């Protein structure tokens, strides 16, 4: 019989006033005992609605049943059969819109804390010997462009099927947004590295410092003997608002700000990476990236951090938990505010944001009520640093160097329902296809593409043989 208490077992967190000044992980995770108690809240529903909410199809009730029994190793292995990055998903997935959003327990109370349980299993097993059973090699080679969530997922799934997989990563370390974008306090980099190490144990080869589209083209990958290519090249050029003053010193894209901190470790003294020592920071945007930038700015030492967002709190696209954490830590939300101009001092350094107040009008094509400017409401918000977190447009390097690869008018690669692009043997997924989205959607696409690549290569092989 399931434990029918209506609420999730709470998880320990660092106190807001403490954590706002360090980069240690905010959420501390379940103890063994709490994990078992939480797992016992699961009803083990026959029709498994939670699984329908999971883009990578984690066998949720099965692994939770194992946790409830105290058999964490089996639980972990069940997760790993479909998810190559459980420690990551358990931390950064928007569970409220996915598995937990569909959980039957959520109807009359809080859903089962599936994310925390997934994280618990991954954390429990880290550093322990796990049974790695690489599949026998099938003699086929696949190239993966980009070592972010979609690429790593595709690589993991293909390696499990026996493919010889090489991941070509542009940066000096694989992980993509998990390394450069999501901050340490939300996703410790050692944990990401561990997941990547596990993939290497499965036989995945990772080549860093390789910018496909520059050092090698997609066509050259085929010439080198790769039979299929998965493109997960991720987010590209950061967007700016196109307003006056965006060239001032102290105006960052969120990508640059976060990369300096996360990948280049500007917050650690032994690293050479510089970052502005800001006092007042205005972050423009309302997504997870904006929350990450705002909370990072606090930790870098800013006295005041504002999130400037043109709609209201209800429309914030960020994960609820991130918004909640940001508020707890002292980030101030200036919703229904839209920057119209950035002003600088005599040295070309930004000194303020001219904001215009907004009100909500009729719903737009996204179904959200669109913000309308209130005439004459402009005011100056003091800020010595402004971080633009308003999205990206896909990276142009691959599309510009790969004949036959079709893109839509926003520059995103066009794929069919199997993630196949317009070019034979080339599959794609993640932000390169969707524009800025979530880690888990990218992973879902990587997974789907891996299955399609497997089918494609097998069909080709049987075609040749028969």
């Amino acid at each position, binding site marked *: 019989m399931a434990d029918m208490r209506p609420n999730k077992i709470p998880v320990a967190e660092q106190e807001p006033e403490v954590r706002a000044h360090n980069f240690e992980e905010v959420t501390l995770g379940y103890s063994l005992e709490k994990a078992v108690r939480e797992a016992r809240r699961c009803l083990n529903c026959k029709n498994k609605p939670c699984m329908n909410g999971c883009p990578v199809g984690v066998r949720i009730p099965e692994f939770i049943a194992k946790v409830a029994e105290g058999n964490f190793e089996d639980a972990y292995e069940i997760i790993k059969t479909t998810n190559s990055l459980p420690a990551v998903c358990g931390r950064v997935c928007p569970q409220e819109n996915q598995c937990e959003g569909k959980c039957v327990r959520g109807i009359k109370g809080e859903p089962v804390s599936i994310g925390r349980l997934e994280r618990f299993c991954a954390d429990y097993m880290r550093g322990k010997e796990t049974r790695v059973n690489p599949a026998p090699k099938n003699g086929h080679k696949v190239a993966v462009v980009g070592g972010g969530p979609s690429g790593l997922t595709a690589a993991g799934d293909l390696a499990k099927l026996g493919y010889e997989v090489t991941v070509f990563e542009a940066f000096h370390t694989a992980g993509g947004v998990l390394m450069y974008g999501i901050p340490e306090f939300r996703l410790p980099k050692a944990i990401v590295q561990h997941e990547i190490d596990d993939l290497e144990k499965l036989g995945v080869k990772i080549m860093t410092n390789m910018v496909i589209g520059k050092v*090698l083209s997609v066509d050259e990958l085929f010439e080198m003997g790769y039979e299929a290519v998965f493109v997960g090249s991720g987010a590209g050029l950061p967007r700016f608002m196109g307003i006056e003053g965006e060239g001032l010193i102290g105006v960052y894209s969120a990508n640059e700000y976060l990369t300096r901190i996360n990948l280049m470790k500007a917050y650690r003294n032994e690293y050479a990476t510089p970052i502005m020592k800001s006092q007042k920071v205005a972050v423009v945007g309302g997504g997870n990236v904006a929350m990450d930038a705002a909370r990072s700015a606090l930790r870098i030492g800013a006295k005041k951090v504002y999130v400037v967002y043109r709609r209201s709190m209800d429309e914030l696209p960020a994960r609820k938990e991130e918004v909640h954490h940001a508020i707890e830590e002292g980030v101030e939300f200036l919703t229904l505010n839209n920057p119209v101009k950035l002003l600088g001092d005599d040295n070309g350094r930004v000194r303020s944001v001219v904001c215009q107040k907004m009100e909500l009008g009729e719903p737009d094509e996204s179904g959200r009520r669109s913000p309308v400017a209130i005439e004459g409401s402009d005011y100056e918000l003091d800020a010595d640093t402004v971080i633009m977190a308003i999205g990206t447009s896909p990276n142009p390097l691959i599309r510009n160097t790969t004949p036959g690869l079709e893109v839509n008018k926003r520059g995103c690669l066009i794929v069919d329902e199997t993630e196949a692009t317009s070019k034979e043997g080339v599959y794609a997924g993640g932000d390169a296809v969707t524009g800025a989205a979530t880690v888990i959607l990218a992973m879902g696409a990587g997974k789907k593409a891996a299955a399609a690549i497997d089918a494609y290569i097998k069909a080709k092989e049987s075609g040749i043989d028969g």
Partner: protein
Amino acid sequence: MFKIVRRKQLNGSVVLMDIDAPFIAKKADAGQFVIVRSDEYSERIPLTIADFDREKGTVTIIFQTIGGSTMTLAALNEGDEIKDVVGPLGTATEYEKGIKKVAVVGGGVGCAIAYPQAKKLHNMGVDVQLIAGFRNKDIIILEEEMRKESTQLHICTDDGSYGYHGFVTDKLKELIDGGADFDEVIAIGPVPMMKFVCQTTKPYGIKTIVSLNPIMIDGTGMCGGCRVRVGGEIKYACVDGPDFDGHEVDFSELVKRNSTYHEAEKLHVCRLMGGVK
């Protein structure tokens, strides 16, 4: 890891390194750059490819030790390894079709970047007037190489201690006024020099290409740090450049943005030199 197969001190502060990087050497072209990270704790620094040897699989970088990261890099010796080298990044320089005569203008260590341009054009059979400016005789680099890869080399020194006494812009103007009918001018060096070259050529309507060196992290179009204003629009030096039409570039914004971390840089150098933090 990328092995340094040759290291040569070109002057007191300028170092040349040939790096074993066969993939990059195979694709490199004039105008492109690499990003180098000396060790785990270093910044990623963009350096224009000064030369490459596809057969040996090496690329050449030439850099001046101006800050902490270049000091760390310069401290490496022949046989040592650089942790990360990525490239070739950026778009190779595109020349106008059918160009016959070009002035390539280099300033200081910028001559290391002007050199591959001169070499490529010279090999294409173009008349290359290479104008290389230095503060004084003691810091002249690559004289022999530049002489070999140009139709005529004009070395200028600010103090007149060698060659032409004056700035590169004076020499350039002299050549233009003397009837040199340049199809294009390519200017590479400190931002003020490039700006003045553009001011020199503008009245004559000579197309002028500059190679920009903004702050950069990834070099692949992700961070947006390298954005520059060209013709009123935001461009990214790493993917749209680093070459741009100099007459369209907002140099004053570039100068300001490049000064973002000057204070931090001084502290960094101080730390490396064992000074107080």
